[in-house]
């Protein structure tokens, strides 16, 4: 059985000016020990999806569908059970971890906190575990006594990773774990995550703009556009020969040099992602699509099979599949 199964998950933010459909009907599954990459431009709903997994979304968000973690539906769980699942079974390395640490509490206390909260260790055991975790992420033990502002961005991200590992969860969700870091540190942190999850047999969901990074770290790749899954399949294949024109553009994208946020500029893609409150009809991608055909603005595109173990939401992909 798969560790995580998403079944037609949707998230809508209800705000004063209307409804924002941030995630629309996403179905995915993740096997124990596997790594899944989620790619997509800014605003495509990646973080929203990640937060939905542990029900961390703000009050104004409505979540639909089913999220099965180890067979248990996260969305209908009692709060007590939900709290027990959080961090102990699935932890998150947040996007923008620069602010993910409490500025007035020592690093060591913050790493130990989930251990104590979930009664997984007594205070002195927790201290030893903190030392061990810091070592695993390449930080000296005395760093436990530091405050967040005394650390560099890269070091703070290492602390976040150590914290995510604290309770030996079965799943770690890493939401753009390297975005705010410079290129050298990015590479270090990425290989750190890659090694740690492999070593401990932890499943990983990694979110990024950078398809090449995901292809390197993950087994499976999911590409999101305007809240929808537009392509899914084994990562190397999706990266090398994407079926959906949006994935193709992402795969050909390159990091904008000198931009610490490393926002990708999808190659050959004009325009901006659509406003989720005014989504184009048909295939949401059609206004920007270089290979759009007549029916695209009205056709109800779905994730169609696109080769062995692959799906893509594009008429061309379906046509190819039918021909072969």
């Amino acid at each position, binding site marked *: 059985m798969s560790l995580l199964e998403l079944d037609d998950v949707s998230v809508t933010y209800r705000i004063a000016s209307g409804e924002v459909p941030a995630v629309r009907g996403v179905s995915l599954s993740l096997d124990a020990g596997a790594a899944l990459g989620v790619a997509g431009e800014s605003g495509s709903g990646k973080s929203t999806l990640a937060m939905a997994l542990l029900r961390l979304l703000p009050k104004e968000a409505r979540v639909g569908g089913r999220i099965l973690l180890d067979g248990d539906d996260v969305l209908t769980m009692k709060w007590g059970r939900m709290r027990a699942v959080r961090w102990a079974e699935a932890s998150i390395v947040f996007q923008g971890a620069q602010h993910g*640490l409490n500025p007035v509490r020592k690093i060591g206390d913050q790493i130990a906190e989930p251990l104590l909260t979930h009664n997984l260790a007594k205070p002195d055991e927790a201290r030893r575990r903190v030392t061990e975790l810091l070592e695993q992420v390449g930080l000296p033990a005395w760093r436990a006594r530091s405050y967040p502002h005394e650390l560099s961005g890269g070091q703070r991200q290492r602390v976040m990773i150590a914290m995510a590992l604290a309770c030996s969860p079965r799943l770690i969700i890493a939401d753009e774990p390297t975005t705010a870091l410079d290129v050298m540190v990015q590479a270090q942190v990425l290989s750190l995550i890659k090694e740690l999850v492999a070593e401990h047999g932890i499943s990983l969901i990694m979110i990024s703009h950078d398809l090449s990074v995901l292809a390197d770290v993950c087994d499976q790749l999911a590409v999101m556009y305007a809240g929808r899954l537009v392509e899914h399949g084994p990562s190397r294949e999706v990266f090398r020969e994407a079926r959906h024109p949006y994935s193709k553009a992402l795969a050909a994208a390159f990091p904008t040099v000198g931009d610490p946020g490393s926002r990708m500029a999808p190659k050959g893609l004009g325009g901006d992602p659509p406003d989720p409150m005014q989504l184009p009809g048909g295939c949401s991608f059609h206004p920007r699509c270089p290979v759009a055909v007549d029916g695209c603005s009205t056709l109800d595109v779905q994730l169609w099979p696109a080769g062995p173990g692959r799906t893509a939401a594009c008429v061309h992909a379906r046509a190819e599949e039918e021909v072969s």
Partner: protein
Amino acid sequence: MTALPDAAEPAVQAAGPAEETPSSRGMLRYALSKAGGALFSIAMVVIGTFFVFRLLPGDPVRNLAQGRNMTPEQLDLERHRLGLDQSLINQFFDFVGDTLRLDLGTSYEYKRPVLDLIGERLGPTLLLAGTGLVIAVSLGLWQGIHAGWRHGSRFDRFSTGTSLVLWSVPTFWLGLLLMMVFGVGIGPIPGLLPFRGSESIDAPDGFAYVLDVAAHMVLPCLTLVAVVYAQYLLVMRSSLLEEVSQDYITVARAKGLRDDDVRRRHAVPNALLPTVTLVFMRIGFVVGGAVTVETIFTWPGLGQLFYEAVSVPDFTLMQGTFLLITVSVIVMNTLADVVYHMIDPRVRSA
């Protein structure tokens, strides 16, 4: 086992920094420099006070003589006695010397040393304003925390609403209202609480005396709290609101902490920092008493003394109380800075 080299961390440092010494020495240096600044401000206040009170319109001796029949000779004699016939520069040095010796002069009105008068009034003021401050701070912060944590809730709207109303109500108006309703009594309803002075004329002894003073304190204290607690509530609320949207709060939730623990362990400690300054600054004003409240309820404190000094006008008394109030505000502001420095790790090591 992963052990990536940590670029920013030379291996030799693995033993850790020599604990405490650098930061506590930095702290001491900071405290000393702040104390120096405070001394300078106090010196400027002393100098400023002298000139301001010399420049005030009106001749103190003539004011004293009002209503009494005095010959010009008697007036001159009085001037001489007060040192007002000397040159300004001599008067200035006398004043500075006296002030350094804590001799604040003699009140024209009471014919007694200003320092003694202040000493008598300090107790009642500290009692009233201190109690008021403690209640206002605890109530304001508690309510502010809960309103901010559940912002938009009914509790929040109620708290914010009442505190805004109380904040905008003039102190004397509220004081008089409370006095009418609970002190004097309206119509058939008798007044329940004493509203004049700090104790009954025939005050009993022992524990009954404590109760008597406490009863006298209720109305002035209530007025004082009602007027100032709103400030704590609103500052605390907005400070907490700022923290609630921070990423580390989401992280704390994601760790599986209970909502109460997220608030207590993460949001509140951060949100309290800005209010520390406010509380300390307010302590400085406590010494000045609450002029309006003390006057309305004829509470025999410093505020009332200051009011009397102004209405006479009694320049030495005004000058003395003014100096005391200003100095205590400066001292408390300095303490606020130092304490803030001690409790916020971010500025502590900077």
